[in-house]
């Protein structure tokens, strides 16, 4: 499109937005004291900003579209290509490990604290990724299992004095159990019906926790949840934070390890196939219901473990921490990061959880920016920041039949 035409178009758009935002941006009414303020300068700003924004927006939109058509080359994300490169991988992973080990010692406690939050979200994201990314089940009530884990630790500790290390595996079992219980009646539903019903379960669990005082202490919540001990030794506040940090790191590594193995197993294949075509799957002898339930329950397992960490770190929980917004945030982590991609989910969690924390400098505007970023990322990178690259099974004919090896490589 010629420049002149573009400018004209942007001018029209700017004008449209000036009209559009007029009542809300310009007129500020205070119905309490009956004051009206006209802020004409805002109008000017809206005009200028939208004019520039529309030029930029159109430019990038066209670029993405052109890119789509002529992009024959390998569209594997850079990070994946780098990770396949042995020369790069070792030093990179080494550096990464060094960074994460040194992290709590270099940075003040606050950074460790929010990094723990982010890492808990990595766990949650990887867990939800099994459900949404691999099995294709839209779960909007994932927070329910998170709550199950958190309350399991808080209550078992309160009533029976069970320690963190006892509750962690127990909560995993509880999570699985709840996954099966909640999944059982609803997994025959399809698509968005499933989404809304899982959302309902999430809310039901929260409301019950809120109202059933005798059980959960109601909205007052449970305070003074002890931090994990190290063979019976209790650290002071700072060291506890560091200790929890390393526990989460270990759990995240474990999650990545197991989820990766699951993905590349018979079950993982079945999940992905089920996402593609349910009917064909059944005709291939895959039990649709059981396979979906497995995904749902496994996802729940990780959410519950995340919940235990959350409770141990915050030391105080109440039902307000488990609203639907939490589920939405976890879903955003998965989708914005890149559905189905573990690296993507990690990136998504770090960006989505750390970003608002660092945006505190512009506290008032951070949610505005956050919302806008979600839209922008999705419009320009609909597959998420890091597109999923699945390891595919390939077969090497050069090998002798009896010693067939499965070579994992990236399909290009």
């Amino acid at each position, binding site marked *: 499109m010629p420049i002149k035409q573009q400018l004209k178009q942007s001018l029209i758009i700017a004008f449209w937005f000036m009209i559009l935002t007029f009542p809300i941006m310009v007129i500020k009414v205070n119905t309490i004291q009956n004051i009206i303020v006209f802020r004409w300068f805002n109008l000017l700003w809206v005009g200028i900003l939208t004019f520039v924004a529309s030029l930029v927006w159109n430019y990038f939109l066209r670029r993405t579209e052109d890119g789509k058509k002529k992009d024959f080359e390998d569209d594997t994300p850079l990070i994946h290509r780098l990770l396949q490169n042995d020369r790069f991988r070792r030093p990179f992973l080494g550096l990464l490990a060094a960074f994460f080990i040194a992290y709590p010692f270099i940075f003040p406690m606050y950074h460790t604290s929010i990094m723990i939050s982010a890492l808990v979200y990595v766990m949650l994201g990887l867990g939800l990724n099994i459900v949404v990314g691999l099995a294709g089940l839209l779960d909007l009530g994932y927070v329910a299992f998170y709550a199950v884990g958190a309350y399991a630790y808080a209550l078992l500790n309160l009533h029976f004095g069970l320690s963190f290390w006892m509750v962690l595996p127990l909560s995993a079992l509880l999570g699985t159990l709840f996954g099966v219980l909640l999944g059982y009646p609803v997994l025959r539903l399809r698509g968005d019906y499933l989404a809304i019903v899982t959302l309902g379960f999430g809310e039901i669990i929260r409301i019950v926790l809120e109202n059933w005082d005798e059980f959960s202490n109601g909205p007052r919540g449970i305070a003074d949840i002890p931090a994990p001990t190290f063979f019976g030794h209790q650290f002071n506040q700072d060291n506890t934070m560091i200790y929890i940090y390393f526990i989460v790191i270990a759990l995240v590594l474990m999650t990545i390890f197991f989820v990766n193995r*699951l993905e590349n*197993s018979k079950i993982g294949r079945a999940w992905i196939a089920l996402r593609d*075509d349910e009917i064909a799957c*059944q*005709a291939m*002898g895959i039990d649709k219901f059981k396979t979906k339930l497995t995904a749902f329950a496994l996802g729940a397992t990780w959410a519950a473990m995340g919940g235990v960490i959350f409770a141990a770190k915050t030391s105080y929980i109440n039902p307000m921490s488990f609203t639907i917004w939490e589920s939405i945030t976890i879903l955003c982590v998965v989708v914005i990061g890149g559905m189905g991609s573990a690296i993507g989910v990690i990136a998504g969690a770090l960006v989505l959880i750390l970003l608002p924390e660092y945006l505190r400098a512009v506290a008032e505007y951070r949610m505005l920016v956050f919302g806008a970023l979600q839209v922008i990322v999705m419009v320009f990178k609909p597959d998420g920041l890091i597109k999923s690259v699945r390891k595919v099974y*390939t077969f090497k004919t050069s090998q002798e039949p009896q010693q067939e*090896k499965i070579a994992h490589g990236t399909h290009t």
Partner: protein
Amino acid sequence: MEPILDVKNLTMKFGGLKALDDVSIAIEKGQIAALIGPNGAGKTTFFNCITGIYDPTIGNVEITPPGKNTQSLRGLKPNYVTERGIARTFQNIRLFHGMTVLENVLIGRHCRLSSGIIKAMLKPPSQKEEEKQAVYDSYKILEKIGLAKYVNEMAVNLPYGAQRRLEIARAMATDPFLLLLDEPAAGMNPQETKELDDLILWLRDNENLTILLIEHDMKLVMSLSDWIHVVDYGKKIAEGTPAEIKANPDVIKAYLGEESDDA
């Protein structure tokens, strides 16, 4: 001898509509049988009733797998039907598009593999062994069907005819004794159809399969089938050898049209 598949008085209603009305069909071991009829006559519904995708309103489906006792398929979910040895392909190709050819066949092996979640996470030697074996078996099947050269291709990138054959390969991976093919030649050119013809005969003769197929390509049907069943408006109107069917006035009227030679 017991028929390998014995469908008795099958009726399937959707709301008030009778898609199938009291259809009985028996298929002998080693037969290539065909099911023909106009569109909307209920042929695919018939397949769906056998494979458990629909639960028939009335009627029973019994199978007698070679060397085993007669059992009923009534009320079984599709995956259990597959486990009992009936595999199928689809009229509109339903491959898993995000997967390679090998993986598509591996999915077919799914129900013959035993390892569960715990094994998948811990990966003991037995599981590794099983996976290796599955890959090997899958490759062998592809070799037989003639798709070995595509083994690492993405399924969507295959030529059309090869996609149809891949559906058959995938069905074969479930170790069936009875293969149901839903319009396997649809959209194939004469050359590909000819190859398909050979493949089906080969499967029957060398893999001990019994085959039931739905097809509109009359040339294929007539040359291949031992026995033909004709349905129209959900009712079975005729059965017999190809020659008998060609001459049957009801079939000509409902389906073939006057000069049934040129299609």
